[in-house]
Structures are given as C-alpha cells and as structure tokens.
C-alpha cells in the first residue's frame, strides 16, 4: 500500500448534486455498522464516512453522501435508517447549493485531547509572517515555540503511555506526527553522545515554497523539546538540510548538550 493523506469531510462541494450528511447513533455491537450501510447504500452514494465508539455503549456513524434519486428527502432517509434495529437515532441534513457542511461535530478528539484542523499552508504563512516581521528574532521565537510544544506533547505522551515506552517506541510514535500531517520522520541513532539524525520527508513547515525563511526552526525546536522531555537531558538541534535550501527533505541533527 502507498501511504497517503487521509480524506476527511468537514465540508464538501459538488455543484448540481443533492448532498446529505447522515449521522446515526447506533448500538456499539457487531453488525450494527454494516446494517446501516446495507440500508443507505440503496439510496445514496457515500463519499466519505467515519465511525467511532463512545463511552456509553453507543457508536456514531457519520457519512457524507450524494442522493441517487433527486426526489430523496432527509426525512425519508431518516425513516429508512430507523427501520434498522441497530439505529438509536438518525439525523440527516441536506446541503445547500452544492455545499455540504458538517453541522454535527464541533472539533476533533485524539485520546482525551482536543484538536483543531487548519490548512497546512495557513500555518506556514503564519510562520512566514512572524519571520518577516521579526527577522532573525522571529526565527528564534519559532524555535522557542517549537521547543515548548515538543516538550508539552512528549510530556502528554509520557503521561499516557509511560516514559520507558515513549523512549523504546520513539520510531513508532513518530508515525503519530506523520498521521497528523507534520511530515514523515525517520530517526537514526540514539540519545548517546552521537545523538539522533532525523530525516523529515514532506515536512509541513517548508511545504509552501516562496518563504523568506531559510529553515524549519519550529520543527527543529519541536524535536529538541521532544527529545529533552523524553530523555531528560538537553539536546542541541541543527538543521543540516532543508527543502527551503534546495534539499529533497529536511534533516536534523540532535546532539546531547
């Protein structure tokens, strides 16, 4: 399988199409999800779906869909879904003028932590503006913010899974950043004298070209902060290669101070 970007659907635009957002609360039991899918697939083309369990024995099915027949109404769809024994409640919202927005969810949760979603290049442009306004001081500021966030995120991870597991499974946990779109981290080395070399493919910080910045100071700080919280010692972080300086990927060196 080729790794790629996950598609999620807080919004969808399909001019001329009759769009529905289907939300179903269902019993968290084997077969519930498939019974809902069996019902709705006769009436709609599902564009994107997600399911997740809740702590009260129920689960949520959320699906963006296009009606197969132009006469289909949200009420008809709700009635159809509620004919399933697995369905506890159903809510179908219709898009307007080809625009369908998720009006059910109010953010994202990973574990117990709330997340927000923003455009990748939106954040990169914030970094660009900080660097442009404050010059080299702006780059230092981005580094400091990276350190602070790297430390905090590592501390949260340590709290959740334990310090030793974070140390032992650094390579595995790096995939967590990749899954969030930060970039694909490939780390070599260890916390000893020679430290780590971390290659970041598709690093978000330099994903938009045209920046006046010459390096990824936030990511450099993030890695230094994360290493500090994980291994309990200071690391000096340098960026040997960066896409902003013509390389194919970023490469950071982390050496114990």
């Amino acid at each position, binding site marked *: 399988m080729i790794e790629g970007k996950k598609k999620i659907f807080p919004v969808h635009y399909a001019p001329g199409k009759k769009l529905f957002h289907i939300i179903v609360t269902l019993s968290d039991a084997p077969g519930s999800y498939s019974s809902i899918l069996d019902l709705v697939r006769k009436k709609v083309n599902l564009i994107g779906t997600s399911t997740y369990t809740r702590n009260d024995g129920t689960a949520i099915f959320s699906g963006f869909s296009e009606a197969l027949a132009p006469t289909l109404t949200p009420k008809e769809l709700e009635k159809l879904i509620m004919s399933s024994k697995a369905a506890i409640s159903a809510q179908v919202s219709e898009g307007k003028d080809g625009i369908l927005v998720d009006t059910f969810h109010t953010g994202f949760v990973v574990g117990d932590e709330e997340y927000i979603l923003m455009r990748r290049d939106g954040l990169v442009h914030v970094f660009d503006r900080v660097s442009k*306004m*404050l*010059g*080299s*001081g*702006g*780059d*230092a*500021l981005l*580094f*400091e913010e990276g350190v602070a966030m790297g430390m905090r995120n590592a501390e949260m991870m340590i709290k959740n899974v334990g310090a030793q597991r974070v140390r032992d499974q650094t390579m595995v946990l790096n995939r967590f950043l990749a899954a969030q779109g930060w970039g694909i981290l490939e780390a070599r080395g260890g916390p000893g004298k020679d430290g780590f070399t971390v290659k970041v493919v598709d690093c978000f910080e330099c994903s938009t070209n045209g920046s006046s910045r010459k390096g990824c*100071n936030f990511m*450099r*700080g993030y890695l230094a902060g994360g290493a500090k919280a994980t291994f309990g010692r200071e690391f*000096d*972080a*340098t960026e040997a290669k960066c896409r902003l300086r013509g390389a194919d990927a970023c490469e950071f060196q982390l050496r114990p101070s």
Partner: protein
Amino acid sequence: MRLRSILLAVLPQTTLIFLRGMVPVLLFTLPIASFALVAESTGDFESMASQLNRKGLKAQAPAAIVGKSGVKHEFAFALTPDSGKTKVVVDTELSVGEVDEMKVLKFYVKVFDVGPEKAVLCVCPRLGERAATLAKEYGITVLENDVPRKLIPMAEKVVNEFASG
C-alpha cells in the same frame, strides 16, 4: 557585502519608477537617503569597535551572534569578551517619522535569544509613545537623536560606562 545591500535597497524602487513614471521619485530617493545614513552609522560603529578593541575590549561591528536557539542574529555593534557571554548589543533604527513598536519588538526578540547584559537601541529621530513604553518594559536602553551621526558617541559613552562599571 555592502554593494549587494545597496543594490537590494535600490532595485525595488527602480522597478517602481519604470512602472509608474515620475510619481515614485520621492520613494526612490528616501530609501537611498536612509541607506546612506545607515551606512554612515555602520561605518562609525566600526570605528567605535576598533577603538574599544585597542582598549582590550572585544568589540565587533557589525556583529553576528548565534543565540540560544541556534539562530544567527546581526547587530550593528556588540561587545563579546573571550568568555563568550555577550555583554552589550547595539542596534539602530532610522526612520523618517517616529519609530514604531514593531522595531522595538524585532530588536527585543533578538536580544531575548542572545541574552546580553545590556541592550541599546539607537533611534533616529525618536520612538513613538507605545514603542517607548515597550522598550522600557523590556529593559532596553534607548538613545534618541535627530542626527544619526550623534547617536554613535552617545552609544560609545553608554558602552564605555558599562564596560568600565
């Protein structure tokens, strides 16, 4: 290096002239004048650094200092003894009108990263009210004068007092 800076300062305004005809002549002349003032100040900071070096102090003008973050910052002048801990940094902000708080902030973040014992901002002609409040809050020593050249001896005095004290 200086020639490159001149070219960079002049080129955008030259383009404006081609694009818009006569009107931007003022825009063209102001940066040139400002640049001349900056160049003059830089030159004087170099003399100041030479004098201080003769006295056995380790001064640089301009100075490139790597901060705690690993980012390299440039200052008009810096006093960095052999011990490596920067004692004093000096920067200049020259403007046609009052210098705004963004310039103070820009200086402060560099200072924060380098962590000198004293930070001096030479301003021509003067800081705006909010900028002055910010500079005071950040503990920045501000020297103001309508004549850029006069800022050099003022800065020299402050640096000498600090170095001897």
